[in-house]
């Protein structure tokens, strides 16, 4: 553990260049050459194609699989170290190809493993670092890192316009255009008449909304794939509606029954669904379906409260999960076995007489909610 070895997680950001420079300047010390290790995290979406699970990017910056970003960072770092005429070692590595990193906890733990493995003494964070997990994650990540790691964690003091927030005005043309269209349509629907006044004020409002919120509503550019996703969502919607009505009757019967025959359990499922949006859609679908309700999204696993044994069975049979996979990953992804077949579910507070079996190997918390 020497202070002159630095770990820098990198991602596409406007302040990356300055962060690299800062880290490179920081690295040289009296007791030997400095060492900077740049680490790239594969976002969960990209980790889907994990056929070639050769995550041994260690020390091979020119490896063909290395992301372009890492190469660029290496070039920058060399430039800087040449300028300083100090000899520092530049290393790169990648994580997240063979594992899914969701949420700041996972990332912090992965980074901690990295520091321990390579004897890193401090971590420098790009103030605009975004590991691509779809939530504003820098602050939580910092807190997590401080909790998990016993090395220094600092934020690079970049002088770029301090845009510490993940929110900003404006977006790409496509984002802005999409929001403009939706907002304008909504406005005209409200107005109901296509008078000049409505058209003009509608345009003004839609422009304001598009400029203000396009970055908030669409975190990434819509692509051609999104259209297919939308089309598949149209197939999924009736299925969801049917599920809602069907289970609603079950739940209603249980509630109106004089003896209130309910059997609520807190469960945890780990669906085979990747990425922020699909997971959110799944969580919302589960909540919309009566009898099951997502209490928490923790990384990739969902804490789901179930009201009736029947709704629990439905959840574990994974119909909704399959539907969401169909929407986002196409027909082929539907063949992945259900939660029940994978046994990646557990009941967090089983009945004391042990009728329900708790089957998951990763029995993390015996009592739901108690340890949070």
């Amino acid at each position, binding site marked *: 553990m020497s202070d002159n070895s630095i770990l820098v997680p990198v991602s596409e950001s406007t302040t990356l260049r300055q962060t690299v420079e800062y880290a490179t300047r920081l690295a040289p010390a009296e007791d030997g050459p400095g060492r900077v290790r740049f680490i790239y995290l594969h976002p969960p979406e990209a980790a889907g194609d994990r056929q070639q699970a050769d995550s041994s990017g260690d020390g091979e910056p020119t490896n063909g699989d290395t992301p372009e970003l890492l190469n660029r960072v290496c070039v920058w770092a060399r430039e800087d170290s040449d300028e300083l005429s100090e000899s520092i070692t530049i290393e790169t590595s990648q994580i997240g190809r063979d594992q899914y990193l969701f949420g700041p906890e996972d990332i912090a733990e992965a980074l901690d493993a990295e520091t321990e493995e390579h004897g890193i003494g401090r971590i420098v964070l790009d103030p605009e670092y975004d590991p691509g997990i779809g939530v504003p994650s820098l602050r939580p990540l910092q807190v997590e890192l401080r909790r998990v790691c016993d090395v220094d964690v600092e934020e690079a003091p970049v002088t770029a316009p301090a845009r510490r927030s993940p929110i900003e005005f404006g977006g790409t043309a496509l984002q802005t255009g999409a929001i403009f269209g939706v907002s304008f349509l*909504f406005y005209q*629907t409200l107005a109901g008449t296509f008078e000049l006044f409505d058209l003009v004020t509608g345009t003004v409002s839609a422009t304001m909304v598009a400029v203000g919120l396009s970055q908030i509503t669409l975190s990434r550019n819509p692509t051609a794939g999104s259209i297919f996703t939308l089309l598949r969502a149209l197939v999924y919607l009736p299925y969801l509606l049917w599920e809602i009505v069907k289970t609603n009757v079950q739940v*209603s019967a249980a509630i109106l029954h004089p003896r209130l025959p309910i059997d*609520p359990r807190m469960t945890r499922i780990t669906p085979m669904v990747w990425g922020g949006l699909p997971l959110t859609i799944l*969580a919302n679908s589960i909540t919309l379906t009566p009898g*099951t309700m997502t209490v928490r999204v923790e990384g990739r696993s969902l804490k789901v409260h179930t009201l009736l044994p029947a709704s629990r069975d439905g959840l574990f049979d994974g119909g909704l999960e399959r539907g969401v996979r169909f929407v986002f990953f196409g027909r082929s992804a539907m063949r992945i076995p259900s939660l029940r077949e994978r046994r990646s579910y557990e009941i967090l507070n089983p009945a004391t007489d042990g009728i329900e079996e708790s089957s998951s190997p990763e029995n993390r918390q015996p009592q*739901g909610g108690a340890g949070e």
Partner: protein
Amino acid sequence: MIEAIRTALIVGCVLAALFFTLVSTAGVLRLPDIYTRAHTASQADTLGAGFGLAAVALSLGWETATVKTVLLLFFIFITNPTAAHAISRAADEQGIEPWRPDDDRSDLRLYRDSQENGHIADGGISADTAGDEERQPPEDGGTNR
């Protein structure tokens, strides 16, 4: 004839809306703990609002106001589950234990136990309405089946 069918449909939808809202009201009043209540609050109620707004849309026919009804429904379908999720998440975060069938405590007892076990952190401004024995409303056991 068409008019009659439409009227019948409207009446049916209003009745269905009333039924499902009755279910959700009964659920919110009867069910034993916050998590189970959140189920009915988000779902039976969503369907109740769905049928109710469907009735309104039917009675309006093809009007701009009908589109508003559809929008209302859309927003309710989006926001209601989120509200239920937010509430249950808050309860979970606060450490309120979920009720189990082999548990014969009332929800108040359950809530107070969660507090006493230290799961609800100190300094919280959580609603500590559970302190006063003699002034409890007499219906206290009403939610306990």
